[in-house]
Each structure stands twice: as structure tokens, then as C-alpha cells.
């Protein structure tokens, strides 16, 4: 006990040297553990979602971008495909197609246009409110609700794609009708709307005054027997309400409307294999992917990088330990006269050894405590860190 008291007094007296030693030991212990934590979380997030998503169909191009966008609503948008892709799977009767359209954002969170089948497929239930029912309604993930303080009855406006896109699509004020239960996945960070609402955000569907009945001359550019041309002043509704929902319409054939990808849920393994076979033609402009295969490839790369980092950390750790040993050896030499004095006042060599051991133990314990604290902080934010570092 006396050894610890004397060691503590010595450490307090040599604050700076102790702080440097504690920082070195802490960092060397913290780095591999923190890395491990992050990798475990990334593996959990990436693998669980990939395993639970049997097949993804999208435009030919980067397989990783397509999977990351469809599963985690990442920022890299793959080329859009047409709604026909959904009908093609539907008609094959091999799988249930679930369209996903992730082009737009609302206050920094991705807007995911899909159908109600997505919620059943991901087993997402509203924790409060209800599911979307009509055009213009949205259901938000648990984190979106918490971060933006949104509750059923609130509203959320879609963000313009570009600040300088003055002639671009009008923002749509969406009604929040439900908040989903926490799923601990990307779904917590998404704003879900019906696919048709996403098309309204894009401007493919819209509601406006009946141009054939306009009486305000400033709204009519030209009127002939069979055509009325409206001016740019014609008011397009930016919020869908009970009163104007009847005026919302889509131009052209919705089979040609864009989506980002289709999640295909085959009836069985055989149906999935047959479906995959239908996308093998050289002239095919769509690709079908098993997300697990793509994510396994990504994880292999991540773990390869981890192995390199482990090697680097090991070398750095060895160098640090050697430096610490050197610091202690030099410290002992500098403290030679002090040790002689302790010896002369009657302490045995064992007592001196105990004193030094106590100093080392205090430094290691302080480093352990600090390292534990830092790991707790990292653990608290692994979800976000993984999204930022690996998913984007």
C-alpha cells in the first residue's frame, strides 16, 4: 500500500512524463480494439441486410453502387431503369418485385419511393401513426423522427436536387402519417413514400388548375378551338390535400417511369436461379445481383485492409513498447541517486522493485480506464461511423 502511495506521489510530481506515457499506452491499446469494433459493426450491418435481400435488379454498371444504394440508400445513385422492369418480374411469376426509387432527399435524409410490400418484406411496422395511404403521405424512420422531431401529423418538404436548379422540380410538402419502429438498419434513416409520390416529387405527376376552365387571362398564353396553352404562372400544387388530390395526374405510360432498382423476392431457390438466368443475355441492359455476394466481396476488401492496418499497428505497438521500456530504463538511471537514498534509509531491493511496479501498474490502469472510456464513446457511435466510413 505504501508502495502505491509513494508511486502515486512520484507520478503526480512528474505529470507531463506520466501523461505522455499514458497517452502512448492508451493509443496503442485503443486503436486495434476500436478498429475491431468498427469492423464488427460494419460486418453486422452490411451482412445482415445483404443476407435478407435475395436479389437486386438494376441498370448495368457498378454492382457495388447498385447494392449500396438499394440496401443502404447510399449517396451514389445508379442509372435509373424503367418501371417495366418490375412488370417483367411480376409477369414471370418467379418472384415478388419491390421497386425502390431513391433519387430525392428531405432535409438530408433519403426519400425512398416504394410500395407497401417493402414494409412487409422488411417487417417494418409503424410505432406510431399508420402506414401511408394516399399520394403525398410519408412514413419516417425512427432516427429521422428523432433527429427532425417529426411525429404523425407533422410535415416534411422534399429538398431541391440542386440549389441553382431554379427551373427544376417543385418541392413537395409531404404529410407525415407514421413513424416506424426502430429497426437498427438504414430504414431508420429513411423517409418512405409511395412510388407515385416520388414521381410527383420528380414532376412526372402533378396537380394544377383545370387549364380548360381558366378564366384569368394572365394564365392563358394561347387558346384555340382544340388547345389551351397555359403560361408559366399556372399554379402547380406543392402539397397534396383532400381538395386537390383529384387534380393530380400522371402523363404518359407509367411503365416507362423511372426507378432505381427492384428487390426481387423469389418464391423459392429454384425460381431465383431461373430468374437470374433470364438476365444473362449479352443484349441485356439490366443486371441481377445477389447482394450477399457483392457485400462479401466488399467485406473481403475491408478485411484485407484491416490485415494491413493490424500489421502497421503491431509494428507501431512494438516500437511504442520499446520506447516505453527505454523511458523507464532512462528514468531509472536518472533516479539512481533517489534509489540509492531509499536503499540507504533501509528499504530492501524488493521494496524498490515494488515501488517501480506500482508506478507501472498505475500508468497501465489509467491507460486501461481511458481506453475503455474511448471505446465506449466509439461503441455509442459505431452505427453512424460505419455509415459514414463504409456506406456513405
Amino acid at each position, binding site marked *: 500500500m505504501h508502495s502505491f502511495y509513494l508511486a502515486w506521489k512520484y507520478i503526480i510530481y512528474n505529470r507531463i512524463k506520466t501523461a505522455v506515457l499514458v497517452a502512448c499506452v492508451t493509443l496503442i491499446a485503443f486503436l486495434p480494439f476500436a478498429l475491431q469494433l468498427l469492423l464488427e459493426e460494419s460486418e453486422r450491418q452490411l451482412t445482415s441486410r445483404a443476407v435478407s435481400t435475395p436479389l437486386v435488379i438494376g441498370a448495368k454498371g457498378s454492382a457495388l453502387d447498385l447494392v449500396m444504394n438499394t440496401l443502404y440508400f447510399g449517396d451514389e445513385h445508379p442509372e435509373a431503369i424503367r418501371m417495366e422492369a418490375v412488370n417483367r418480374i411480376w409477369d414471370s411469376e418467379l418472384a415478388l418485385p419491390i421497386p425502390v426509387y431513391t433519387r430525392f432527399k428531405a432535409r438530408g435524409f433519403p426519400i425512398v419511393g416504394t410500395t*407497401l410490400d417493402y414494409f412487409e418484406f422488411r417487417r417494418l411496422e409503424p410505432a406510431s401513426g399508420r402506414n401511408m395511404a394516399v399520394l403525398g403521405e410519408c412514413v419516417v424512420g425512427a432516427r429521422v423522427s428523432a433527429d427532425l422531431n417529426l411525429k404523425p401529423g407533422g410535415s416534411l418538404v422534399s429538398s431541391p436536387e440542386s440549389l441553382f436548379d431554379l427551373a427544376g422540380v417543385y418541392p413537395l410538402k409531404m404529410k407525415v402519417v407514421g413513424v416506424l419502429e426502430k429497426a437498427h438498419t438504414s430504414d431508420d434513416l429513411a423517409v418512405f413514400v409511395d412510388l*407515385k409520390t416520388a414521381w410527383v416529387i420528380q414532376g412526372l405527376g402533378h396537380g394544377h388548375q383545370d387549364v380548360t376552365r381558366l378564366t384569368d387571362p394572365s394564365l392563358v398564353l394561347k387558346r384555340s378551338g382544340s388547345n389551351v396553352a397555359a403560361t408559366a404562372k399556372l399554379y402547380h400544387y406543392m402539397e397534396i390535400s383532400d381538395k386537390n388530390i383529384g387534380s393530380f395526374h400522371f*402523363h404518359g405510360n407509367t411503365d416507362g417511369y423511372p426507378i432505381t432498382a427492384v428487390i426481387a423476392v423469389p418464391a423459392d431457390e429454384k425460381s431465383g436461379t431461373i430468374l437470374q438466368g433470364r438476365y444473362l443475355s449479352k443484349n441485356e441492359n439490366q443486371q441481377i445481383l445477389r447482394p450477399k455476394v457483392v457485400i462479401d466481396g466488399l467485406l473481403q476488401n475491408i478485411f484485407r485492409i484491416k490485415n494491413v492496418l493490424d500489421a502497421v499497428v503491431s509494428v507501431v505497438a512494438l516500437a511504442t513498447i520499446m520506447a516505453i521500456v527505454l523511458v523507464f530504463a532512462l528514468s531509472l538511471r536518472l533516479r539512481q541517486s533517489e534509489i540509492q537514498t531509499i536503499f540507504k534509509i533501509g528499504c530492501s531491493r524488493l521494496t524498490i522493485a515494488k515501488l517501480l511496479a506500482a508506478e507501472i501498474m498505475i500508468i497501465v490502469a489509467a491507460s486501461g480506464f481511458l481506453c475503455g472510456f474511448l471505446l465506449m464513446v466509439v461503441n455509442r457511435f459505431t452505427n453512424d461511423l460505419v455509415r459514414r466510413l463504409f456506406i456513405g
Partner: protein
Amino acid sequence: MINEMRSYFLLVPVLLFLLLSTAAQAVDDPLDVYVVNYPLKYFAERIGGPHVKVTLPVPADVDPVYWTPKIADIGAYQQVDLILLNGAGYAKWVNTVSLPRSKTVDTSRGFKDRYITVKETMTHSHGAEGKHAHEGLAFTTWLDLYLASEQAEAIAEALARRRPQLQDEFRANFQSLEKDLLALDGRIRAIVSANNTVPIIFSHPVYDYFVKAYGLNGRSVHWEPEQEPSSAQIAELRNLLETHPARWMIWEGTPVKPAVDVLHAMDIQSAAFNPCGNVPSDGDFLTVMQQNVVNLEPVFR
């Protein structure tokens, strides 16, 4: 101890029985089916028999094509086992609500290429889209009874997909319904073939499939059977008669006497052909259609 073990052994078959009976009940529970109009309800009930519970949540006095559901109605549609849509633009509310595609069957999708397009005469333009008209589709597909039988077949297939163990029963019920529908189709063809070029006027523009299927020479006005025609409507009819000298007007329902009298003065007789979009007050789809056929006989005699 032995008694305790014996009671456990007795408990096992009881639990097994309860488990099996629950599973069997889940299979035996009638499929909860929601539809958008009466013909689909009739077809689904004929095909599904006791294995389906079909609901048309539209009030009896409302034409289902113009009905707008409340949020609670949409919620009910979202919860059922199967949603049967007519397709061909029938019930426009379908385009503005969220329905689970996995449960939704568009019964006319199989003959999408045979849809009849009705274009607005007035085009308009705004924004970058250029000139366009809001095209509509004729939606009373079942008035072509051959197409009606195709819709019934789509329903039979949808039910069989959800209850594969009952597919033979559904198939047999469909064949019986198909026989009835095609018999009616044959009777109409026989009736109109005697004089199918005779000009006729329809009180409402909902008979496009009927006209096309049976090769009729029909034009439409917009008169309501329960309302006396206005002078503007009468003038419009007079204009139409100049190029289309019809002697018969076919109504959706029995017209009020003043309307009959107006037509009578113009030497036009009235006959009813009920499209039967909503549940009839008397009889069912088949009896209503049989009566329609009887009503048609004097028109083409």
C-alpha cells in the same frame, strides 16, 4: 412422480392437436377479398364459394367508378388477403392511394392491348411537356361478356395462387361461370346479328366495350335516367339525330316518365341495359344481364 410424467405425456397430444387445428383453421379461413365493383364481387363469390369473403365497400347508391374511399377504407383494402381491381382506369382513386402490389390483381391486365381509349377533345399545354390531352380509358370492360370471362379467369387464377389446395374447386366454379357468361354473349350476338347496323343512342358514354364487342352502331349522350333532360340536352340530341337517325335510346336504368315522353315525342323508344356496376337491388349479375338481354330484343328486331 410417475403421475406427473403421465400428465406431461397426456399434454403432448393435446398441444399437438391444438397446433394442428390452428394451422388447419388458418387454411380453412375464408380469404378476405376486397373488390372495386359488383361484377368482380359476383365473379369472386361464384368462383370462391364458401372459401372467400368478398367485400365491396361502396355504398349502394354510389356508382363505384366515381366513389372515393376514406382513409379507413384504404386501410381496410391494405389489410385484406386479395384486392381485385377492374383495371382500364376504373376507379381513379386507385392511382392516388397506396395498395400492396403483392395482394393486388388487375383483372383486365391480360387484355390490356384491347383497352378502348377515350380522348378528351380539348388538348392543353403547360410547362415543358408540350401539348397533351388527359386521355381516359373506357372502363366498363365486363359489358363485353367475353372480356368478362377473361376477368373471371384472372380471379380464378389469383384465388388458386393463394389457396393451391382448392384450385380444382375454383377451376370447376370458374368453368361454370364462364359457361353462363359465354351463353349470354352468344345470346346477345344472336339478337344483334339480325339488325346490328340499326342506329341506337346510349344515355351514357359507358357502353364502349359493348358497342365494340357486338359491332353496334351506337352514339352516346349524357342523360341521367332519374332526371328530366334539359333543353340543351334535347337540342344536342336533335343535332345528333340529324346524322344518326336512331329510334332507340338505351338507358343505364329505367328512365323517369318525362324523359320517356320527350323521347316518345321524337319517335324514340327507351330500353334499359343496366351495366350493373354496383350491387343490384334485386337479383344478381347474371339475372340482371339476362333481363338486359330480354330488353335488347325489341331494339334489334
